[in-house]
């Protein structure tokens, strides 16, 4: 029987696993978390079941249908707490995972050699730096969501939500349902841009009823809770000694540059700031998959990447939300299982849904994408690389004094992006700032911040342990 390995148990990965089984393959499903659902369907642990959890979720019944089917299927092996740290493609695909308590001791190393691989690794928040963003009490939207949905914990009592994109609305809703008072949601873009992005050819959105209903639900939630939604405004600084105590907000122009004289001070005990998402593409890069210019994984209509036997679905092919991820996952799982029938999902319902929700994804980018003027809210002391504590002034000095045209050399000189998060938080920002400061646009090497051959920090003692061979197939050994 053909074996499909799926990395990531969010909407895309769950749909892929299910479709691969339906097409007759056996499935191995790996996820770094100890529960299914990914960040989107993050929920209370099994030790604390709840009767009405659907209140917190969009598509909760879909999640239950998928996870129940997979959990009760003897031909699906679900391996939670499994972190994939490397992928090699030589004679077939080898997936290296480490399984056990996060960052724990004596985790087990395993190597999988599936017939096909589906990458469904998702995305994390992208937060642009601003003075004070390293203070405790400044969170990404994802952190607020994870704690509210996974633990029923509100990150603060008086909270401001800021940044860009429709996903700020579910953050505000989750916070409210966890007991926070959300003072306002600040969207960096002005009404004109939102209208330009969202309103053309509205009939195309009709098919996206699910998304429409999801977003409409959040807007209705905001009205009910009377949360102001302010356009063209951003948090440009956070203040406090050991934690955030207040923030400065300002009106932005159409390019996101703050407008002098429009500053307001707001007292808060937490803020949640996200300016979009960064796809988690290091495993796709390790597998050798081709990327688009915007650095998403290139896929064809069957969700095939440029590498034989490797498929991709969900946010790593474009930021489009859960509905698009589900449609892509279904197609990827079917294709990875070797499904070829003409009525397969690449030709039917999922393909239609994929087309509709790709349209939604494009609108999100047109309406909410990052604009270059934000760098004007930085000052020289603003921390850019959180791990290595490299500030904006040092980055500029390194760029100007070395006159280097190499991103790699500039990173090594400045140390920006070289810390333990492996440039996940600041990488793309550092690229942008170095290009701006060095006035050599673009930098002349083709290096970028998303390449991480070792995809997570490992302890050397763990790397030295022999690999468990029980998952290797067909008698292969390394």
């Amino acid at each position, binding site marked *: 029987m053909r074996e499909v390995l799926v990395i990531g148990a969010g909407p895309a990965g769950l749909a892929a696993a299910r479709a691969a089984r339906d097409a007759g393959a056996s499935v191995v499903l790996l996820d770094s978390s100890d529960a299914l659902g990914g960040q989107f369907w993050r929920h209370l642990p099994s030790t604390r079941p709840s009767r009405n959890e659907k209140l*917190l979720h969009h598509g909760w019944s879909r999640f239950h249908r998928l996870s129940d089917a997979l959990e009760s299927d003897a031909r699906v092996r679900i391996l939670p707490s499994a972190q994939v740290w490397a992928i090699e493609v030589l004679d077939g695909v080898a997936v290296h995972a480490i399984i056990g308590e996060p960052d724990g001791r004596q985790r087990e190393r395993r190597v999988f050699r599936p017939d096909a691989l589906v990458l469904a690794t998702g995305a994390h928040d992208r937060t642009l730096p601003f003075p004070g963003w390293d203070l405790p009490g400044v969170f990404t939207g994802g952190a607020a969501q994870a704690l509210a949905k996974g633990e029923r914990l509100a990150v603060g009592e008086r909270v401001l939500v800021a940044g860009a994109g429709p996903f700020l609305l579910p953050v505000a809703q989750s916070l409210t349902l966890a007991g926070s008072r959300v003072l306002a949601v600040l969207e960096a873009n002005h009404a004109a841009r939102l209208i330009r992005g969202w309103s053309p050819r509205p009939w195309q959105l009709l098919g996206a009823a699910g998304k429409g209903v999801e977003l409409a639900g959040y807007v209705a939630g905001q009205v009910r809770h009377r949360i102001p939604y302010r356009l063209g405004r951003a948090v440009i600084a956070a203040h406090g000694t050991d934690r955030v105590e207040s923030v400065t907000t300002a009106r932005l122009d159409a390019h996101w540059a703050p407008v002098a004289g429009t500053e307001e001070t707001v007292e808060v005990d937490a803020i949640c700031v996200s300016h979009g998402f960064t796809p988690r593409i290091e495993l796709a890069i390790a597998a050798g998959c081709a990327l688009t210019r915007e650095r998403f994984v290139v896929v064809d209509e069957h969700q095939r990447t440029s590498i034989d036997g490797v498929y991709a679905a969900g946010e790593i092919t474009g930021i489009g939300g859960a509905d698009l991820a589900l449609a892509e996952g279904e197609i990827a799982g079917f294709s990875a299982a070797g499904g070829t029938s003409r009525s397969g999902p690449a030709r039917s319902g999922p393909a239609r849904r994929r087309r509709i929700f790709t349209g939604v994804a494009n609108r999100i980018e047109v309406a909410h994408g990052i604009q270059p003027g934000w760098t004007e809210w930085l000052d020289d002391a603003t921390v850019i690389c959180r791990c290595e504590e490299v500030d904006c002034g040092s980055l500029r000095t390194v760029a100007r004094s070395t006159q280097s045209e190499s991103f790699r050399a500039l990173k090594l000189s400045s140390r920006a992006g070289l810390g333990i998060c492996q440039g996940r938080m600041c990488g793309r920002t550092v690229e942008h700032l170095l290009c701006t400061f060095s006035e050599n646009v673009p930098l002349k090497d083709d290096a970028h911040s998303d390449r991480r051959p070792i995809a997570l920090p490992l302890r050397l003692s763990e790397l030295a342990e022999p690999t468990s061979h029980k998952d290797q197939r067909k008698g292969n050994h390394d």
Partner: protein
Amino acid sequence: MVPSHEDPIRPDDPITLSITVDGEVITGLQGQSIAGVIMANDRLGFRQTAKRDRPRGVFCGIGVCFDCLVEVNGLRDVRACQRKAGDGDMVVTQGNSGPQDPELHGSELHEDVS
């Protein structure tokens, strides 16, 4: 924390546990992350940074930023947002002094080869 009996999602009554953070015993709920237990006890800062000695707390909440690293039961550099709290866990927040005992802590590999 949303009190269980007031929560509209109607969760089962939680089972409590306790952990020790820098010598102080605090209580949490089974299934919570160490970060969640600490934050629910009104503490936001988790570590002091190496260069500037500045406080850092949970930032990304999903295991990506590594800002919430703590020492758990003698092992350094554990992401508090990812590790589930276990009853009796001994948690020590990390300062700027680095590991004292390399035997115990082990080195780390996080190469950047881009």
